[in-house]
């Protein structure tokens, strides 16, 4: 396989992070990267737990979860970009990004079909929100990840298989 392949690319990770230079950079780097919490509570925001669609998150099939969440089934679409790795480096942290150019997107959901519960995350977008959301998911095993986009009152979907291998050594 690709065992001994050297994956080379210019300017990445550490180097990009370090571009600021070395002298006294640490303190400089630290401050702007993280804007520390000004207050412990998010101002006036206080999310209401009762709006949580608990039932939709307790389903074990795609169609059941979608029925409860949206009252409909999704049709496949090539207008949705679902960015997820072919092979997860660790099933506990799998970066997944969903984006689309469709207009009037009101909701985006992420499903992992072979997880104990299908629905992983769901987002409600207001008119100003751009349909481009990145998240990190737990995948119990190799599974198809499905992205659902609700646009103009209709449901669209795309999917991608993600292989989850045994983690542990390293």
């Amino acid at each position, binding site marked *: 396989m690709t065992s001994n392949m050297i994956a080379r690319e210019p300017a990445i990770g550490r180097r990009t992070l370090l571009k600021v230079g070395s002298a006294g950079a640490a303190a400089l780097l630290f401050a*702007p*990267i*993280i*804007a*520390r*919490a*000004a*207050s*412990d*509570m*998010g*101002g*006036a*925001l*206080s*999310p*209401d*737990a009762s*709006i*949580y*669609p*608990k039932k*939709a*998150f307790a389903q074990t099939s795609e169609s059941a979860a979608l029925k409860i969440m949206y009252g409909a089934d999704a049709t496949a679409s090539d207008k949705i970009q679902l960015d997820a790795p072919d092979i997860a480096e660790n099933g*506990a*942290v*799998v970066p997944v*990004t969903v984006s689309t150019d469709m207009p009037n997107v009101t909701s985006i959901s992420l499903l*992992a079909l072979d*997880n*104990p*519960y299908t*629905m*992983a*995350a*769901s*987002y*409600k*977008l*207001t008119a*100003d*929100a*751009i349909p*481009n*959301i*990145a*998240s*990190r*998911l*737990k*995948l*119990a095993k190799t599974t198809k990840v499905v992205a659902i986009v609700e646009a103009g009152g209709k449901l669209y979907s795309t999917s991608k298989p993600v292989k989850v291998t045994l983690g542990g050594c390293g």
Partner: protein
Amino acid sequence: MANQILARATVSGGVTTVQALVKHPMDSGFVKDKAGKIIPPHYIEVIEFALNGKVVLTGFWGPAVSRNPYSKFMFKGGKSGDTISIAWVDNLGKKAGTEVKIA
């Protein structure tokens, strides 16, 4: 507790990008501890992101969202100095939130 949420918001070309890392175990309820006892489910259910107090994105999360969850999203509008608020509530009714200024 301090530092429950680390966030950063930047604006460019009229589009604001928000990134946030939330400190939370996100226990699924399927994992056992070292003594073989099930760790009870403990995860964020609702998270809200707002610009100057007005919600722009609401996230509903299940136990399949990774520990210490990361989110990144974008929205139109917002300018340097505006306030982004982020707040969550979990399945045990605990809440936390933070505010950052758009850089």
